[in-house]
Each structure stands twice: as C-alpha cells, then as structure tokens.
C-alpha cells in the first residue's frame, strides 16, 4: 500500500509517485546506502521500478512513503505489518539520501512515523534491525525509544567482512512516556463537543 501524508517538523512523509522512481533507483545504487543493508531492491530500469511500485501498492502487508524536505524527495520509508499480531509493525527501511545527511531529517521522519504508528494506528510495538556499526541509525533509534532485544552475529557482509546485526523494539508504553504529551496527530477535542 502507499502511505498518505504524515507531517513532521522538517520533513513530510507522502505518497510515492512515478516521478520519484529515479530518486529511489539512485538511492538503491548508492554504496553509502547499500552498506547499511536495507535497500528496497536492486537498481533497475524505470519500467521495473514502475512494476515494483505497483506491486507495493497492491501488497496489503506493507506501506511505502517518500520523505520530502524543502520541496524535494530526500528519503524513503517502508513498514510491514506483523503477521501474528496486526498491532506489531516492522520498520523495513527509513533511508535518507546521503546528500541530506546531518540535517536532522532522519530523526524528524522517525518521530513523525512513530507518532502515526502509535497515536493514529494504535500499534502496540514496532521493531527494526540494524547493522551494529550503523551508529547514525542506532543513535536515532535509541533516542526515540528503541531498546535492543537481540543480536545476530556476522550477518551483514560488505567491504569484504561481516558485521553484526542488532534487533531493537519500541513499545507503546515507552512512546506514551516519552512522546505522547507532545506528539499527537490531532489536538484534543474541545470540552463539550459531544453534547
């Protein structure tokens, strides 16, 4: 499925469009992005990417967004609903274009995405897996509320060597404690609106 609008402070997550496909292809071909091990698919022709986007739009288990900032695409987000528990979400990918790194877009997109997942979709828990040496992503994950629950050994292979994998989860209770007071999709209804 394709995601709707989620507004952050610096970025907006929006519905992917056909004109985003060359941007997505460029991300999947960037070795700095590939190093982190979460690209959607291999680089391909525009026609293949069009088919992939169509398939994603039909897939009831996933949701895809483009991250936009300052009027241009700067990233991509893909999530997957849990198979056993529909209130579980896996963050498959939250990738920011390396040209836009260091501007706070990743953190802002992460907070906005999880606000949508917890405050709007009422998810119970989110999970993500990251390379153990992806310090930038781990810092963002831990800052917003993720905690480690597992570690795979010698999982990612790049630059001629293996790196470990870290599994993290973000529980609803942690969201409520850290963010619920300040991060809401909608303002509370005014007193007496139901009368």
């Amino acid at each position, binding site marked *: 499925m394709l995601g709707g609008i989620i507004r952050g402070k610096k970025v907006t997550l929006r519905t992917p469009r056909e004109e985003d496909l060359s941007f997505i292809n460029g991300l999947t071909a960037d070795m700095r992005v590939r190093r982190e091990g979460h690209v959607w698919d291999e680089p391909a022709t525009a026609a293949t990417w069009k088919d992939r986007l169509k398939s994603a739009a039909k897939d009831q288990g996933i949701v895809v967004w483009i991250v936009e900032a300052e009027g241009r695409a700067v990233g991509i987000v893909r999530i997957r609903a*849990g198979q*056993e*528990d529909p209130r*579980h979400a896996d963050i498959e990918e939250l990738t920011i274009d390396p040209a836009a790194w260091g501007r706070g877009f990743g953190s802002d997109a992460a907070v906005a995405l999880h606000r949508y997942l917890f405050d709007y979709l009422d998810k119970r*828990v989110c*999970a993500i897996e990251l390379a153990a040496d992806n310090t930038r992503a781990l810092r963002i994950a831990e800052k917003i509320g993720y905690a480690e*629950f*597992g*570690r*795979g*050994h*010698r*999982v*990612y*292979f790049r630059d001629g060597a*293996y790196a470990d994998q870290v*599994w993290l*989860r973000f529980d609803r209770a942690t969201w409520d404690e850290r963010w619920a007071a300040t991060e809401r999709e909608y303002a509370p209804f005014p007193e007496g609106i139901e009368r």
Partner: protein
Amino acid sequence: MLGPRLEGRNGVELRPPRLEDVQAQFEWVAQPEVTRFWSPRHGEWTHEKAEERFKRFVEGEDAINWAIAYEGEAVGLTGIFDIDWIRRDGESGLFIGRHDLYGRGIASEAVRLRTRFAWSHLRLHRVHNWIALQNRGSRRANEKAGYEQIGLYKGYAYRSGHWLDDWMGEVFPERVFTRTERPDTLSGPEEGGAESVPRDHSSEAFLPRPSGAQVPKTRGRKLHK
C-alpha cells in the same frame, strides 16, 4: 528450489515436496493442535492457492523446500527461506503437521539433516530462525543441531490469556559439522583446524551421525516454531 532426498535416522527423511504435500499442509494448519504457536488458522486454502504455492516452491531461487517423511509418509514441511546468497544467510522453518507423531524426534532429525545440508551443499555461512519460547520440542530440536539463542522477543502472539515469546536463534553450520561429523570432512579439526572443508561431494554426506558422536554443546537456554 526443491531440496534433494536426504535419508536420515529412525525412519525420517527429507525429500522434494510434491503438490499433494502442499495441499496436505492446508489441512494440517487448519488444526488447533498444530497452530498453537503460529498461523492465524485461516487462509485462502484452495486448490489454486496450493498450485501457486507449489510453483513458488519450485521456481523460487532464494529458498529450498523439503517435505518431511516419516516411515515413507509425508508428515510436515521444512526449508530455508529468504536466502541471501551474498551474505550466505537464510531463515529456517519447520512444522510437523501430524500432531499424533509429536515427541518421536522427527523434527530433531529433520533439523539435523537440513542444517548439515546448509553447509555441506549450499555452503551457507549462517542460518537463523524464530521459535516460540514455549514450544520446547521445536526449540530443543534446533538446539541439538547447534542453534544458539541470540535474543528474545517478548509478546509476539496471544493465545488463551498468555503472550507467547519468540526465541531468536542462529547456527553457523560449518562450525557444527566440521567439528562433530567426521565422515563429512576432508580432515578433522585437529588436522585441518578451523579451516577444514566438508567433503561436499561425498556419497556419505547424509549418512547418520556415527554412534557415540556428541552433539555440540550450546550456551544458555534456547528455543522454534
């Protein structure tokens, strides 16, 4: 891909699955005894879906699938899925659909055959899986083949008033089978050290473990769906 026929001990063998095994799977996963730890127990269980699934079994290049046979009869399915041929890593899964046969060591033998094949013929570096912590039989079957716990995901599914937890495991088949299965290696660890290479063309590759050989010692408490 369909896996080749691997003859095991005690009447257990892995063999290439057939369409009727996939159809049988739909009957197996409709039963409460089989779905305590996974599956919503509903699905599009039609003949067309079975054919589609079987076609994926045959054509998929990132998975290897077997039927588990016990005394000549298919009783479950197993495989290694989502194989990343660069990382040489894959996720394993197994289920025994005949709940009247639980406790006979069928899963243990199936996991042993599958894990050995992962190294000796697929040359996979690592295999990982997720098993319900409360599914002690499946967890033990995987531990005996060398899987070790790497994490615990609390509360992955809800059943009858309790949350089930997921035991996360991994195995490095080369370490297990070059250490413990002498007939499969060109040289034992004391001769070739950690670099000893399995004899992957050997006709003995799937003979039972020699009597007296010990399974590898695992660390900590482990668990598999």
